[in-house]
């Protein structure tokens, strides 16, 4: 431990002896002597000072050297201080002068907060300028997830102030969990002033809560326009990723999510207004600086007749189905309803758990737009079209075919639903005689009929805004070979001729077909008012040929045909139509009883007035049994509404009494029942994508059902058919569903000989 430092020679002996401590161990020989140990306790000043000069060893440390050292080193310290001072001044010059502009901007962007004011969304109008979608002024409260300090306490207080129910608070939590960052979450909208004011006064204690007056989307007829117009909602994270526009995360802004709202997003949106405010670090607004007004979005005028659309949707009632009405002058779509539907008004703040559960558990598939995306075997509604095809191929409308109650093809017997006797073409349409069309289809082949079906719009996709259409199938030999690698058989022709087998069409296509037959013109459907589509290539039918189909359809309703129960006569205006009953799948029993899912689809096409067609309509009621029983009366009332609204509304009012109110009222009642039954126990709603997935799966399910059918169906609607009597000859009918298992068994009903 000692400093090995040789003691300088010539020091006084006593000094050496006394100050051993200063140079301990320099003489190994003296170490053992205890008397030579330094006295550590004695640190007296005098002792040291006295000895100091003697300690001037080889390093010559003395008061003088220390003083010199202090002088030198204090200069170093001073220089260091000065140096740091200069460094600080230079740094400050760098920040404050050279980078001044940059930091000025940053300070300004700190201080000034640009708040976007969501633009008023453009209205969607019907053909007469009445709103189908409008805006109403609204007091609303939003939460911004990133700004919330204490999420639970805030939800608690906001819920208390807004008097939210447990279910509503649960939905709010769900939405907050799903939201990211600055994506606002609506806590409530459409508030009355009292509740709005209650939250407003608490805003200073509620960071992350935004209270504002704005506009919210309003659909006056609710569910009636749900599928057509779609709905709006807060932008999802995916939508924001696709379009990183700050407007999308502005509280109160809604983006089109479905239907026309989504399709015309760019036109409807408008330009946001802006409000520049000075804010503190915690987001508190100090004062307004200036503001710019929003530019409302453009309105969009549709060909839709609002009251008719509403009437059609309501008239479907508790059934599941679709109605399409087309203007035979322009091709404009007057009504396109699919029921049951969702209420777009209740979706603007996102789908709640109970609504989700309701929509998901409904076997009527309210999320599917059946008018555009539902595919159905058209059944006998194909017969007017088939009559035109036959005439094109040289069949005389006056040729008679004898119906013995069925048609024999080789060893099989295709059964007609009655013994019609001798019928010409008009009579065959009137009585929906399968035997006539089997006979003729066998003669000309279905490949002669399919092009006419396509010419009239079947199997076609039309250029319409909004939801994508599904275009179904008009089969022919090439199609079957491509799809199933099988030869087309005569049985296939017979099935297809009466709208069964591989044939599937959408209600929109049926309506277009009806309009084209009724007008004799190649109308194209349109949805935007004033933007009627030009006519397609002229139809090759002569007026005489069309007259045959018209006569047949007239007699269906006004003669002794299948639709005679739905006859109308409003000041001389009459309706022509054709019923259709499409078998859903192979049945053990006949298709008008049994469980709902396996009953026949009920269809009806019609137009009026009969002399010069003005309106054409297609009605499809899923599993409605006979075309004459479910679809035709609906068509009759809707057609009546077009010429005599008062009478039609009276009929509807009576019907709705039995159904439990308007669709909106029924949905409200159902929601209430769900709320009482499930409360907050309903499972969580997934993202928007899940809703889309649900719609797609609804489609798939529909397709399977639609292609499942093969057997020809009777068209006569007997008030109380005897189940046993009519069921017996049809059972069992071996069929297979084409998409899964193509096979030779796919034939019309085989009668054992």
């Amino acid at each position, binding site marked *: 431990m000692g400093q090995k430092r040789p003691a300088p020679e010539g020091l006084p002996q006593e000094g050496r002896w006394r100050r051993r401590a200063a140079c301990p161990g320099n003489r190994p020989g003296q170490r053992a002597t205890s008397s030579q140990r330094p006295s550590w306790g004695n640190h007296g000043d005098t002792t040291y000072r006295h000895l100091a000069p003697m300690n001037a060893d080889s390093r010559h*440390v003395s008061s003088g050297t220390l003083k010199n050292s*202090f002088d030198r080193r204090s200069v170093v*310290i*001073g220089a260091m201080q000065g140096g740091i001072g200069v460094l600080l001044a230079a740094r400050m010059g760098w920040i*404050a*002068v050279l980078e001044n502009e940059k*930091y000025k901007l940053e300070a300004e962007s*700190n201080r000034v907060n640009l708040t976007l004011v969501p633009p008023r969304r453009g209205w969607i109008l019907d053909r007469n300028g009445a709103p189908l979608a409008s805006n109403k002024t609204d007091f609303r409260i939003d939460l911004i997830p990133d700004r919330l300090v204490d999420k639970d306490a805030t939800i608690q207080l906001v819920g208390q102030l807004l008097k939210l129910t447990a279910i509503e608070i649960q939905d709010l939590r769900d939405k907050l969990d799903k939201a990211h960052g600055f994506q606002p979450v609506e806590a409530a909208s459409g508030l009355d002033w009292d509740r709005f004011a209650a939250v407003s006064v608490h805003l200073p204690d509620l960071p992350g809560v935004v209270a504002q007056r704005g506009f919210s989307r309003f659909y006056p007829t609710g569910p009636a326009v749900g599928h057509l117009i779609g709905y709006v909602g807060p932008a999802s994270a995916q939508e924001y990723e696709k379009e990183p526009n700050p407007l999308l995360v502005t509280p109160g802004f809604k983006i089109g999510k479905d239907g026309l709202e989504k399709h015309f997003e760019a036109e409807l949106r408008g330009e946001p207004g802006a409000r520049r405010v000075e804010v503190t670090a915690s987001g508190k607004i100090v004062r307004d600086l200036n503001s710019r007004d929003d530019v409302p979005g453009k309105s969009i005028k549709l060909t839709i007749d609002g009251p008719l659309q509403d009437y059609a949707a309501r008239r479907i009632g508790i059934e599941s189905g679709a109605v399409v009405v087309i203007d035979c002058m322009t091709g404009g779509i007057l009504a396109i309803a699919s029921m049951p539907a969702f209420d777009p008004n209740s979706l603007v703040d996102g789908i709640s758990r109970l609504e989700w559960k309701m929509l998901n558990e409904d076997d009527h598939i309210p999320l599917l737009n059946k008018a555009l995306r539902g595919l159905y075997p058209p059944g006998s509604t194909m017969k007017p079209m088939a009559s035109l095809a036959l005439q094109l191929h040289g069949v005389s409308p006056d040729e008679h075919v004898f119906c013995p109650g069925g048609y024999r093809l080789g060893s099989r017997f295709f059964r007609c639903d009655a013994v019609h006797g001798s019928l010409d073409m008009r009579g065959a349409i009137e009585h929906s005689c399968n035997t006539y069309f089997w006979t003729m289809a066998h003669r000309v082949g279905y490949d002669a009929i399919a092009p006419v079906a396509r010419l009239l719009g079947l199997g076609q996709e039309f250029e319409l805004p909004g939801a994508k259409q599904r275009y179904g199938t008009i089969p022919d030999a090439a199609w079957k070979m491509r799809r199933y690698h099988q030869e087309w058989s005569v049985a296939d022709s017979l099935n297809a001729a009466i709208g069964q087998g591989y044939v599937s069409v959408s209600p929109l296509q049926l309506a277009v077909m009806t309009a084209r037959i009724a007008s004799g013109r190649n109308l194209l459907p349109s949805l935007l008012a004033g933007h009627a589509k030009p006519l397609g290539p002229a139809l090759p039918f002569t007026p005489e040929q069309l007259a045959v189909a018209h006569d047949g359809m007239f007699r269906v309703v006004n003669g002794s045909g299948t639709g005679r129960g739905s006859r109308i006569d409003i000041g001389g205006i009459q309706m022509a139509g054709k019923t259709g009953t499409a078998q859903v799948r192979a049945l053990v029993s006949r298709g008008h009883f049994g469980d709902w899912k396996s009953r026949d689809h009920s269809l009806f096409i019609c137009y009026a007035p009969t002399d010069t067609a003005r309106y054409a309509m297609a009605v499809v009621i899923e599993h409605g049994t006979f075309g004459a029983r479910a679809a035709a009366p609906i068509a009759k009332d809707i057609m009546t509404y077009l010429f005599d609204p008062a009478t039609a509304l009276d009929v509807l009012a009576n019907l709705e009494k039995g159904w439990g109110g308007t669709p909106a009222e029924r949905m409200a009642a159902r929601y209430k029942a769900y709320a009482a039954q499930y409360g907050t126990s309903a499972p969580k709603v997934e993202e928007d994508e899940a809703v889309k997935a649900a719609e797609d799966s609804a489609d798939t399910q529909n397709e399977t059902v639609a292609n499942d059918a093969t057997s020809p169906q009777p068209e006569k609607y007997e008030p109380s058919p005897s189940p046993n009597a009519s069921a017996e000859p049809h059972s069992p009918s071996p069929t297979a569903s084409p998409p899964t298992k193509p096979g030779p068994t796919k034939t019309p009903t085989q009668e054992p000989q």
Partner: protein
Amino acid sequence: MALGYNIPDPVARQPWGIILPLTTLVLFGAAVLYSASPVPGGSLRPWALIHMLHYFVFLAMALVMARFPRDWFKLAAYPLYGLILVSLVLVELMGKIGGGSQRWLNLGFMTLQPSELMKPVIVLVLARFYDSLPPAMTASWRGLVPAAGLLAIPAAFVIIQPDLGTALAICFGAVVVIFLAGLPLRWFIGAGLAAAVAAPVAFFSLLHDYQRKRVTIFLDPENDPLGAGYHITQSKIAIGSGGFFGKGFSNGSQSHLDYLPESHTDFVFATMAEEWGMLGGLFVLLVFAVILRWGMTVARSSNDRFTQLLAAGMTATIFFYVAINLMMVMGLAPVVGIPLPFVSHGGSSMLTNMICIGTLMAAERWRKRGGSIP
């Protein structure tokens, strides 16, 4: 300080060379605190008035200290050191037992951390130690080990509090005294090298997470603009947006809209610079240069070793506050909780710095009155 014949002697005898710049700086600080007040338009409350009150009370204390003879300082050195060390330990223990982190004593009109008082006292005790150490021993282990011990114990207690800023301030004052005491230069170079090697180890093992984070964020503040880098970023915005002439009195948006954290304490310089610009910043730097130069002059012109080391150590302590604080607000040093002397609001720092000033005044007085020093 012969100002004139008609000035009464007791007044003329006061060290006006330091009182004047100091008072100017404190009043300027009070103006900044007045503007930074949360009351719109500025107010004496809650900070400016108290700030001036602190100053004048402690100035009186410093002037009284200035009259103490040198022997009092020498005599008091070890007992004061012991007393403060004990209270430091006691407060630390109380904090531990109480479960909280109350590491201060309530003096009624202000609260005081013993660690704060340790900053001047460590300088005093080391000056005393080297004064009594025979010059020949300064180059030996006995010149270093006791001094290191005197420093290590309080520094260790402050570090475990944990208060890195105060610990660094204590160490800096002490190291400057040890350096000026004339210990061999190679020891300092060696220690510097050792520190360079040990620093990464200490960084990953000794520092608390939040301290480590502060260092990494200092190195890259933009990486975390809304988290801990927020302080540095906002401070630079405040200084930078002020420009050369500033935004004008009570026009600073950064401080008034609460973007600048600690706008009246640690980041008061940024508050000032936003409103007074670089001009105000240069003024503050100039006043500090005057004060520190005065301190170093007192040290260098003293004739005895104790006074030299004491005065230089006190000056270094003030310098450390100023340098670290200004480097911090300008983004040259990590965020450590060190206020700007005489400008930041806060009694403890004012007390410490005025003790340093009072000691320097006393040292100047000894030189003037004292004849030959042995």
